[in-house]
């Protein structure tokens, strides 16, 4: 009896290993078959793969210079290793805390203001019954999305400079003109509110789309129960778009330390540096302008690692609290 059972299991084991062999074999034959049939598709995608390898994977290889003293004539590989020297230099430098404070400050300020406003706008637009008015408002508030950063900052300066429109209004009411552009104290506010001006309409699209999925019968039932519009927004619409809000919050909160270079750089000048210098502009200055390649690679790498940790952490907490997450 036992022998038979043993035999049986050994046959089963045999079968499983055969199956495994079959799977790996079929993988090969599948690839071969697919390649024979679709060789032209592989040919088609090859340049794109080559592009990604050259322009996105080769720079990964260059990251090692963060731990080396990069010498141009020796190249990346033959430059001598120096361990954590560049990181230590950055952590000990006078700039370190200023950069962290500014980067984090701008990031959190943006998150606190730029993130909720589009949600409110979407909820408001969703309540508009007059479709012509709705269309008009949408057309207007989406428009700044298509302006370039240079144009937006250029407009900001034209309106806020010492003899610009805003200061003319201030003097008209008997105030003294404010040096918005050069005053460090104004930098973050200008940065955040010009960002709101440019992006609030566009960012509301995704919430509007989520709102169209709300079941209308819920609203009808609530109306019969005598719920006001505000109550219906609060108890039906907001819960309905909550998953979208959480996902976008994770993405935004995760990138709180990766304040974009483009706009900060344009708004920066020697007088507001104490408030406007962030990690990305520092990397540009020390790397591209001063050619301290290894040092600025180390600073950039530090920033990417922090960003990644932030994303993972925020995602973890969101999962715990809300059961919605990116992965």
């Amino acid at each position, binding site marked *: 009896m036992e022998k038979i059972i043993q035999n049986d299991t050994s046959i089963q084991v045999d079968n499983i290993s055969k199956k495994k062999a079959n799977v790996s074999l079929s993988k090969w034959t599948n690839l071969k078959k697919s390649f024979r049939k679709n060789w032209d598709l592989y040919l088609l995608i090859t340049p794109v793969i080559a592009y990604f390898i050259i322009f996105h994977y080769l720079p990964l290889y260059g990251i090692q210079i963060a731990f080396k003293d990069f010498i141009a004539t020796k190249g990346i590989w033959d430059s001598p290793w120096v361990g954590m020297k560049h990181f230590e230099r950055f952590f000990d430098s006078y700039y370190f805390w200023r950069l962290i404070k500014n980067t984090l400050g701008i990031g959190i300020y943006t998150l606190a203001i730029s993130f909720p406003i589009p949600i409110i706008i979407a909820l408001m637009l969703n309540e508009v019954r007059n479709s012509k008015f709705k269309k008009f408002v949408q057309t207007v*508030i989406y428009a700044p999305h*298509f*302006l370039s950063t240079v144009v937006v900052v250029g407009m900001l*300066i034209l309106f806020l400079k010492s003899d610009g429109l805003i200061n003319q209004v201030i003097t008209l009411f008997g105030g003294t003109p404010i040096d918005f552009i050069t005053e460090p104290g104004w930098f973050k506010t200008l940065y955040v509110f010009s960002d709101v001006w440019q992006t609030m309409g566009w960012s509301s699209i995704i919430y509007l789309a989520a709102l169209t999925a709300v079941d209308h019968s819920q609203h009808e039932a609530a109306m019969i129960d005598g719920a006001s519009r505000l109550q219906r927004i609060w108890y039906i619409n907001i819960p309905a778009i909550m998953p979208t809000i959480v996902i976008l919050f994770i993405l935004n909160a995760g990138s709180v330390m990766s304040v974009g270079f483009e706009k900060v750089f344009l708004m920066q000048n020697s007088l507001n540096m104490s408030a406007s210098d962030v990690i990305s502009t520092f990397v540009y200055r020390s790397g591209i302008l001063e050619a301290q*390649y290894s040092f600025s690679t180390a600073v950039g790498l530090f920033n*990417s690692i922090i960003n990644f940790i932030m994303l993972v952490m925020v995602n973890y907490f969101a999962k715990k609290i809300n059961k919605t997450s990116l992965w």
Partner: protein
Amino acid sequence: MQNSTSDKVFSFFNYFFLAIIALLILYPLYFVVSASFSNPTYILTGEMWLWPKGFNLDAYKKVFENEDIVNGFINTLKYTTFGTLINVIMTIMAAYPLSRKDFYGRNVIMAIFVFTMFFGGGLIPTYLLIRDLGMIDTFWVMVIPNAVAVWNIIIMRTFFQTTIPLELQESAQIDGCGNIRILINIVLPLSMPVIAVMVLFYAVGHWNSYFHALIYLSDKDNFPLQLVLREILIKGEMDEMIKATSESFLKQQLSVEGLKYAVLIVSNLPMMILYPFLQKYFVKGFMIGSIKG
């Protein structure tokens, strides 16, 4: 309904605040248009705030006489046309094979692409690579290192998968039609909406970008419009604010004052003309992307 009065109040405030928001966005844009047609003196004294005052086209004349602006405009036109062409072709080349279920290895290839959305070498290693490739200060640096965007590949692949009937492709295959011919004769003609979205996405990106040019271009003759704009609108102003201004400088400032508004208009002209299409297709493309992502 018992809450109808409170609902009416809510509705009123809702319309009211939306109208204010729309006005807050519209007014600065309108002011720029109005200022570009006005006499610069009235702008500086604050007398022009709604309608153009001292109507004239001098500013536009100055814009077109300014060699840097004209040259930048032509450069941007070149970068945008060639860049977008390369972008769209590369996107199709990646998206079509990836959309085919019988294309073995598509998950691996997709993973290779998506990985780059999260991890990159960073500014300096990329800069060193492009320098080693000898691309600094060439035409190619403006169109090759950003040849394709992963996000757009995903959008296009999703479109191919969901809107092109598989049976159509299969029956063509049975008729002995090769993959490339299926792509060109069957898939692409049915994909014009998504191609339009791609053209607009990429073209607006090229038109508005300055970062790439700032880092990789140093020869002024190659500067795109956005970099020229930066010199006129931002660098010039900042220098003024920091240095003590002299009498002659004030006069010079007056002469470029009107030009600044006009150059804003000229640089955004293509965008303004395209805006109705942009809005329609951008929202559509944005939707395809966000549903999948």
